[in-house]
């Protein structure tokens, strides 16, 4: 029968397509790790061309960008989930959030350059980079917060309000704790993305590393690992072992992504289990 043959054929093609997707991923990982892992020596981190400074800057900028974006992102998400009435104003905020989420990162980079580098006259700084990166984090934080809070059953709110709690008490003591696993997953997702971001930071945090190890001065320039990979791969300095550095840096970035992906699931699962308790009668 023709229909059955078509069904068999399509099934096989879909299997092949999906296997191809997985194969590409595996090829990516083996290629990057295979080339890079051998270079991850102490020399790679601490040597004269070592990436210790970049590694530190990556986490420092990530940390500052989260400090700047979390309060606003959570606040706006909470507003959208718990307070926002159905009207034009709410619609406008939702449209803005979605638009912000679709802005290409290079545009954020140029915006950050106008504001922090030129208007405030700071030049390339860790602070400017973090603040611009925070803009990239914002819309995702708003969405993740709103979704996590909406997943909390209505009955929890009713129970708390009926006991005479204010909305703020209800949020702080009941809704936010219940939504915590979802929030943590979302924040980890944001952090993973911010850690690999490059286009924004080239024009705001620059491509230089402080000479002082672990320099926490937010007004210093701060090249991150991802920017470093771009720099050594696109304009390799003659006389350096740029290719080895690039291989090692790519592997290090991938390892960071994998670790973040694992972190994505573990703590939230643990929290969830603790909230639900042993589910026996």
């Amino acid at each position, binding site marked *: 029968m023709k229909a059955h043959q078509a*069904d068999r054929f399509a099934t096989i093609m879909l299997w092949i397509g*999906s296997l191809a997707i997985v194969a590409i991923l595996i090829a990516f990982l083996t290629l990057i790790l295979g080339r890079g892992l051998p270079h991850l020596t102490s020399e790679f981190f601490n040597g004269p061309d070592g990436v210790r400074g970049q590694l530190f800057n990556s986490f420092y900028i990530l940390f500052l960008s989260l400090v700047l974006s979390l309060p606003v992102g959570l606040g706006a998400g909470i507003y959208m989930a718990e307070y926002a009435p159905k009207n034009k104003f709410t619609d406008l905020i939702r449209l803005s959030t979605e638009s*912000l989420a679709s802005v*290409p990162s290079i545009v954020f980079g*140029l915006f950050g350059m106008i504001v922090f580098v030129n208007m405030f006259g700071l030049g390339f700084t860790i602070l400017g980079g973090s603040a611009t990166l925070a803009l990239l984090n914002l819309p995702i934080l708003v969405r993740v917060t709103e979704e996590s809070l909406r997943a909390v059953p209505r009955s929890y709110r009713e129970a708390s309000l009926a006991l005479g709690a204010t909305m703020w008490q209800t949020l702080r003591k009941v809704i936010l704790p219940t939504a915590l696993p979802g929030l943590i997953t979302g924040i980890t997702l944001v952090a993973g993305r911010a850690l690999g971001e*490059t286009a924004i930071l080239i024009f705001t945090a620059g491509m230089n590393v402080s000479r002082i190890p672990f320099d926490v001065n937010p007004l210093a320039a701060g090249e991150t690992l991802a920017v470093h990979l771009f720099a050594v791969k*696109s304009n390799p300095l003659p006389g350096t072992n740029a290719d080895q550095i690039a291989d090692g840096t790519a592997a290090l*970035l*991938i390892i960071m*992504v994998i670790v973040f992906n694992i972190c994505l699931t573990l703590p939230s699962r643990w929290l969830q289990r603790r909230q639900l308790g042993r589910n026996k009668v």
Partner: protein
Amino acid sequence: MPQRKSWVYYNDRLSRYLFISSAVLVSLIILCIIWFVGMQGLSTFREVSIIEFFTSSKWSPDSGKFGALTFIAGSIGTTLIAILLGGPLGLAGAVFLAEIAPPWVRAFMRPATDLFAGIPSVVYGYVGITVIVGLTGKLTNSPTGYGMLAAGIVLAIMILPTVISLSEDALRSLPRTYKEASLALGATRWQTIRRVLVPAASPGILTAIILAMARAIGETMAVQMVIGNSPRFPDSLGSPTSTLTSNIVMEMGNTPFGSTWNNGLFMMAFILLIIALIMIILVRTASRKGAAR
């Protein structure tokens, strides 16, 4: 207890104000971005005619020629290649995950595609330079392999997670009854997928494709690393050219802020911003249509 009361109310009101102002701030940011980038970009046209900017492919700022058509064509070309390659593959993956994959395969494949999404774009560019450029060089018989095809392939891989996860969600959110009704009429699984499920999920799938395009056209680092960065009109798949994003990265560093050249680069960023906003409006229309049905 009563003297704590005023505190409780104060906190409640204060927190509400803080939440509202956060939401307003998010809206203000997008307006600021449009305003700043737009003003800077549009000032290009004080020196350059709009027609030249959009229709000429001669970009040599030193001799006063500001035609950005090369970059616009490069961006559109790479995005189209990415969608043509990555769209069908991603959709196949989504159908597979939603309808065919045994649970254990799905349990493995879903996190794997999420991992794709987490890989930084410079790493994609790095893989592009180390492997894909060699491959496209052979395919297109060009000496270097840098160009639209290499960028398109890298972008196709980058958009896979977007296409897969959003399309799968769209397929999964269909009522079970659709599938059951079709199967009960004696349709095969493939007939059900092709004639019932995919059409029914088409607003969601369309959203996935549009968002993937938005991601592809705005992608910067990965493209810049494999496009070749020559301001030459993209007349073949394997010759070095430029896109809007790659050219901004290349030239931003060596142009003085406020010069016509620099403004031209901001205008390119503004074009990208406008395209992104149009995509969002398209997505909203698509999902509203989906909801209306």
